[in-house]
């Protein structure tokens, strides 16, 4: 029997988690309760984050846009602040599972779970988002790009929770999230978050390793050569070299590797077309 504890502030949540090592934070529940129902996890307490005001809502801040950890996928998918270079985050939110799950699942929950095939992390990595964590030793920021450290392992320390994800202010440039999946709402077989950045592109590949794959140096070497297919192919090759895809029911490692350059080229074509139109 798991007890349910419903704190009203981040501080209450953190001190409870510190005092109860077998307690687990519960965000939307879309993933955690599914795993509990399948007998995969047990917990002494669920610390429900649903009544902590500070974790709610999406708002403009000084240097960008702050998305509270308990923001539901649906809110993110319909948020008109996420335009231009940030549209990729909005598109990713809209492709998660289906509408009822998007009414329940939260960005903080999804980011903490760090499922390699989930939709948010590549999109957030592509826009250089930062995750704000809060724990017994206070708050700290971790760039999404380095947040995932291994398969299902993140920068979260014991007793820490994600309280917000902050995106830089949107640039008036195109961005696109492309997901290859067997049916609507399935986890990604492979995914590509891509944003125009002047004469180069920012790209994060999903479902091809423990976390999103991005190579900022390769992006710089590509700067100015977007029109040169070989340069783009070489760039894609850099990302593929960093990939560590698995074989599973959604596809083989070879297939995922083969998709990386193809998704990048297709994304570029689509954005070029959109730019010209």
């Amino acid at each position: 029997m798991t007890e349910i504890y419903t704190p009203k502030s981040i501080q209450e949540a953190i001190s409870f988690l510190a005092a109860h090592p077998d307690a687990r934070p519960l965000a939307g529940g879309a993933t955690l309760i599914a795993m509990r129902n399948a007998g995969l996890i047990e917990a002494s307490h669920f610390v429900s984050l649903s009544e902590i005001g500070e974790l709610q809502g999406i708002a403009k801040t000084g240097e960008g846009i702050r998305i509270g950890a308990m923001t539901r996928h649906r809110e993110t998918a319909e948020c008109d602040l996420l335009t231009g270079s940030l549209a990729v985050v909005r598109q990713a939110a809209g492709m998660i599972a289906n509408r009822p799950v998007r009414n329940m699942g939260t960005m903080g929950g999804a980011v903490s779970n760090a499922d390699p095939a989930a939709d948010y992390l590549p999109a957030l990595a592509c826009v250089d988002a930062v995750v704000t964590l809060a724990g017994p030793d206070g708050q700290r920021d971790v760039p999404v790009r380095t947040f995932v450290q291994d398969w299902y392992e993140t920068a979260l320390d014991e007793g820490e929770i994600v309280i917000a994800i902050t995106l830089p202010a949107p640039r008036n440039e195109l961005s696109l999230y492309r997901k290859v999946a067997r049916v609507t709402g399935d986890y990604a077989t492979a995914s590509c978050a891509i944003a125009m950045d002047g004469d180069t592109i920012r790209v994060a590949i999903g479902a091809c390793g423990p976390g999103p794959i991005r190579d900022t140096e390769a992006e710089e070497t590509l700067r100015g050569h977007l029109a040169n297919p070989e340069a783009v192919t070489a760039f894609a090759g850099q990302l593929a070299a960093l990939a560590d895809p698995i074989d599973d029911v959604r596809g083989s490692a070879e297939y995922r590797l083969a998709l990386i350059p193809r998704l990048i080229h297709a994304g570029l074509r689509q954005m070029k077309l959109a730019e010209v139109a």
Partner: protein
Amino acid sequence: MTKKTLLTLTLNGEETDVATPMDATLLETLREDMGVLSVKRGCNQGVCGSCTVILDGEPVRSCLTLSARCKGHDLRTIEGYEADDIMASLKQHLTQSGGIQCGFCTSGVLLSAQTYLAENPHPTRDGVKSALSGNLCRCTGYRTIVDAVCDAAVEVAR
């Protein structure tokens, strides 16, 4: 017997006290402790949609929702739409269109469709299909269901 705690839920507009295990899912509480059998367990993992209920006006998975988190929230199942004209039209069209076969997904489909039409009186066919993509059906092939929802929208909008 497992320890049960008292919980007050507003189900279909009526405040109800129910004794249910503290960590029970809403699906378990509704079926085993409140006798609401229109909500079905198809997968218990939030994929099939036969457990859909409306929480504060939004379709959610009752199999992934803890009852303890529903105190003070507005909860609706199919039984709560007797006087709702959108639901009446949906039921009528779904019955006629061949959109009901084995019926195991029907309650979930109706709840998702009603919520969507309430927000989108003039839906596109694609919009209806997106609203229903979380309600799996293995018998109909979906066309008859989508037709029924579109026809109901036209009828209600008149």
